[in-house]
Each structure stands twice: as structure tokens, then as C-alpha cells.
């Protein structure tokens, strides 16, 4: 009966209920977009690091993120290979360079020099294979950036630092937070373009031998390579994310937007529930007069809040899934994961329950004697 009464109270005030649902819907969509962008940005930022075939990264001291790379001296790889517990060490060359389009215009790209297998070989290849990196002048780019790079697809050519490169394969979904396209190529080609020596690299990717303790190997490497920093894969991933999202303020802006959405939603729902409670105050007084406990009456209001939350969330989730679908192939994809969906449901419920407090405070002060006065 509590559910029936709550539901009928809501539908009795049809226009107000629609207003509540729109309020909840917009609030949750706003939160979904903000948190979805946060998640999308996080994945873009950490994608390179997370996909690398490594337990440990050897980086130049002060390296803040994957793109903000400084060059290692060159002798580190041999020293690292000599450390107990190290199974393999792969050189990676990463640098900002200028890409000259066929029409003569130029744009900045991040080249990623990697072996064809292991290292940081491109993934999600939709046309061609990673082995195409070895073809003459071959590079692999993401299809999202074809227009920005001034090429139409596999086989087209452009120039980097005056040297011809040819699109040999395409990936899908390897996008950069900085919107600067990644260009995959062999380590040797990257060295040649950047002007590195044969042993120079930006990063060393270290695989620890099976059964070895990663932390112990990390300490041994750090001792052997005192001019570098040795960081665990997840640590470097988090560092990159924190740098771009929080030192630039982008992450704060997204989270602030989400909080703002929640506040707006809470105020709208609270206002609606309070007004509804006020309109039905005689009924709540009657309930009290016929002996309903405070708990029973509070349940009616909470049930109204939860029904609003469930319907409002369903609408928002449908729109959210649509937004995710529409942005999936854009440069700013909004990501909606199952945990995020559950978190949004939790936030919606929390928002509506908090909103019910003002209404509950109102009914708590009801004097059942008013039923005799009306």
C-alpha cells in the first residue's frame, strides 16, 4: 500500500512528476556526460601506457606523462639487461614531430617507435597488420585522425621531418587526450626521424622474469640506473592521468560539472517532493491520526523519492547510452562502463533520498489534530 500510495501521489500531480523526471534526467545526463568524459579522457591518457608490454618503465627523471618524454642517454638498455630478474628490455622512441600533409599543410604528431611485436605495438588494427610497420616507410595511424593528417587511408603518403612515410595500416580508437595524433612506426625509423643514435630511446620497457618479484627488480634497476626513474606500469599510468587531468584542471572541471549536476538535481527533486508533500499534508495528517507510525509516513515519501529516482534514472540511462553510441568514434568519446552505470544509479538514489529529507522534516512536524479543523 505504501508503494501504491506513493505512486498515486506522484501520478496525481502529473505535470509536477514530469518536471521531476526531467530534472532528474537532465541532472543525471549531465553527470553521465561529465563522468563519461572523465573516463574517456582517462582511457585516452593511459591507453598507451596500459597497452605496453611491460612490468616496469625506465624513464628520464621528471617525466610527467607518456607524451612529455625526455631522451635517455643510450647505455641504459645494456645495463638494465644485466640486472638480475630482468627478462627483456625494449626500447621505445616517442617524440613530437611535424607531419606534412600531401597538400602542404603541417600538423604536429606524436611518433611512437616500437617493435612490431611486444613493446608498444599498435592494437585494434582494422586494416592491415602490425607487421606492416616493417614495410618501406610504413606507419600506422588511427582512422579517427585521417582527415586531420590529410590522408584518406592505407597507401597514402605524407612527410615527417622531410622524409616520406606511407600509411600501411589503420587502427580504431587509439586517440590522444592532447588531440595530437599518434603515428606508430618501427623504433629504427623513429630514431632516424628524431635523430637519435642507434641505442638512444625515450623509454625502456622492462619485462620481469617469471617468478621474480617486480618490486625487488624495480629496486635493483633503480640502483643500477641512478640517473633514471624506474616506475611500475600502473604507477606510470596513474601519473600520466593525474598530470593531464589534475595539473591542467581538466579533471577538476569535469568533476565540478558532475557535482553541479547532482546539486541541481537534488534541489529540483527536493523542491518537487516538498511541494507534493505540502499538497498532500492533510492525507499525511490523516495517516498520522489513524495511527500510522512516523516510519510508515517516511516510507511513503522515500518511496516517492525512489520511484522518481528509478524512472528518472531509466530515462537518463537510455539517453546516456545514446550519447555514448553517438560519440564512440569521435575524438571525445564518452565512456559508460557497467561500474559507472551502477555508480550513477547509486548517485541518483542518494540524490533523491537526500531530496526527501526536507519533505520528511515537514511531515515530522504534522499535528494530526488538523484533520478535525478541515
Amino acid at each position, binding site marked *: *500500500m505504501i508503494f*501504491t500510495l506513493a505512486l498515486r501521489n506522484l501520478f496525481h500531480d502529473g505535470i509536477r512528476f514530469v518536471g521531476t523526471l526531467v530534472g532528474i534526467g537532465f541532472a543525471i545526463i549531465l553527470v553521465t556526460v561529465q563522468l563519461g568524459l572523465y573516463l574517456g579522457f582517462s582511457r585516452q591518457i593511459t591507453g598507451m601506457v596500459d597497452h605496453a608490454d611491460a612490468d616496469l618503465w625506465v624513464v628520464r627523471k621528471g617525466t610527467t606523462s607518456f607524451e612529455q618524454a625526455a631522451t635517455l642517454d643510450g647505455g641504459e638498455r645494456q645495463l638494465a639487461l644485466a640486472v638480475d630478474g630482468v627478462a627483456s628490455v625494449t626500447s621505445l622512441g616517442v617524440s613530437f614531430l611535424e607531419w606534412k600533409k600531401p597538400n602542404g599543410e603541417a600538423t604536429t604528431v606524436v611518433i611512437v617507435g616500437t617493435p612490431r611485436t611486444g613493446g608498444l605495438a599498435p592494437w585494434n588494427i582494422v586494416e592491415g597488420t602490425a607487421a606492416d610497420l616493417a614495410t618501406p616507410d610504413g606507419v600506422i595511424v588511427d582512422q579517427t585522425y585521417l582527415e586531420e593528417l590529410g590522408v584518406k587511408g592505407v597507401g597514402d603518403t605524407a612527410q615527417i621531418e622531410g622524409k616520406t612515410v606511407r600509411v600501411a595500416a589503420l587502427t580504431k580508437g587509439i586517440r590522444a587526450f592532447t588531440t595530437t595524433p599518434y603515428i606508430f612506426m618501427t623504433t629504427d625509423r623513429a630514431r632516424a626521424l628524431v635523430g637519435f643514435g642507434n641505442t638512444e630511446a625515450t623509454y625502456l620497457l622492462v619485462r620481469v622474469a617469471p617468478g621474480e618479484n617486480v618490486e625487488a627488480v624495480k629496486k635493483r634497476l633503480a640502483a643500477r640506473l641512478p640517473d633514471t626513474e624506474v616506475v611500475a606500469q600502473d604507477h606510470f599510468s596513474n601519473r600520466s592521468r593525474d598530470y593531464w587531468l589534475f595539473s591542467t584542471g581538466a579533471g577538476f572541471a569535469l568533476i565540478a560539472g558532475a557535482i553541479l549536476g547532482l546539486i541541481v538535481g537534488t534541489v529540483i527533486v527536493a523542491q518537487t517532493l516538498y511541494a507534493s508533500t505540502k499538497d498532500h499534508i492533510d*492525507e499525511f495528517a*490523516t*495517516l498520522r491520526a*489513524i495511527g500510522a*507510525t*512516523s516510519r510508515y509516513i517516511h516510507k511513503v515519501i522515500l518511496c516517492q523519492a525512489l520511484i522518481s529516482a528509478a524512472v528518472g534514472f531509466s530515462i537518463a540511462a537510455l539517453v546516456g547510452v545514446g550519447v555514448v553510441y553517438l560519440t564512440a568514434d569521435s575524438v571525445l568519446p564518452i565512456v559508460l562502463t557497467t561500474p559507472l552505470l551502477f555508480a550513477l544509479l547509486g548517485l541518483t538514489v542518494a540524490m533523491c533520498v537526500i531530496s526527501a529529507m526536507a519533505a520528511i522534516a515537514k511531515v515530522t512536524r504534522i499535528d494530526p489534530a488538523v484533520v478535525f*479543523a478541515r
Partner: protein
Amino acid sequence: MTEPVIHGEGVVMTLGEGEARVNALKGVDLAVHTGELTLLMGPSGSGKTTLLSILGCVLTPSSGVITVAGQKTHHLSSEALAAMRRAQIGFVFQSYHLFPTLTAQENVELVLDVRGERGASARKRARDSLAAVGIEHKAAVLPGRLSGGEQQRVAIERALVGNPSIILADEPTAALDSENGHAVMEVLAGVAKERAVMAVTHDPRTLPFADRIVRIEDGKIIGEERPRSE
């Protein structure tokens, strides 16, 4: 005479503050017994509804002692008073106070739900209750589509379905025409054979149904009569 179901002793009620302070009840003693329909009559402002509210445990007196089903109420919390009302008292209000979004049957069933009785048995009890006053065919109708007499009968059944010891009715015929008023009083008179019923009224049409008439004026009981024993 049986033990009173509700007993008020030395009930004083002061309303307002300062210059607006009014003594609504000035030391009222009143006992209501099972098996009789008591009419509490008096002019407007005499304190009859205030007394009904106090006897019904929805208003706390400034002083005096209220005893319901043998239990004194002055020390009880608001939740304990609600429990007392739930178990012992059924209310019938002048303006019915039915829930406009619930059907006639749901309005009756609501009282059972408040008491923790749910499911098919509660629905059957509610339907049977409506059948007892001849409006089971209106079970699925919202109050707004019922006549005043039908609404008041639903309200009476809502008060009765929980099987309380006493029914307290506030001007139960005031909003009804002669025919419906008569029908409602017949129902209350029937109820009064098995439990206590007290109705606040100034409607002379109710007099023929009374076992006992208590007159109140200016916050004091000024007289009492038992028409059927005369």
C-alpha cells in the same frame, strides 16, 4: 455499567498565548462506554471538537488525565499515542478525509496496512467491510466519484475495519443531505451495539439515534440525558 473505553478526568485545554489565550476546556469529566452512541452537542466554539481530539489522543490536554482502554495516556510518546489510536480508536471526520488517489477499497485497506495486515486477507476484509454498508460495487471507485453519503460510509468502514474499541466521529452528518445523514446515523447506531461510539454534532437529525446526549458549552459539560431511558 461497564468500564469506560475512554475516560477524561479534569480535562483542561488552553489554546493560544498572551491576549489570544483561550480556555477551550475548563475541567471536563467524561466517560464513554461500550454499547452506547453518545452525542456530544453544543454550539460552535463550545469545545466539543477539542474534547473529541483530546479523547482521541491526537491532542494533548494542558492538564487532566485521559484513560483509553485502561491505560493512562499523559506519559506516552507521540509514537505510543499513534499505536494507541491504531489499536483502540477509529475516526470519522466531517470532511471524510479519504485519500483521493486511492479507491474506496484501498482507503479501507490502508488502515489494515498501517496495522501491518497485508495481502489477500486484508483485501477481503476491506471488500467485506464495504459490503456491510452496501457499497461493495463501488470498491474500485475513487472517492471523487462517490456521493457524499457513499464517501462517509467508506470513511466509517475505514474507521471500523481495524476493529477499534471506540469510534469517534466529528460532525458525521454535517455535509450530508437528510437521506444520507439518516443512513450514516443508522450505521453508527448499529456499530454502537458492539462498541463505544461518540459523535460530536449540532445536527438535530441525529438525536433519535442517541443513547446518551452530553451537552457542552463554553468549555464545560452542562448537562447529560439518556433519551431512551426516559
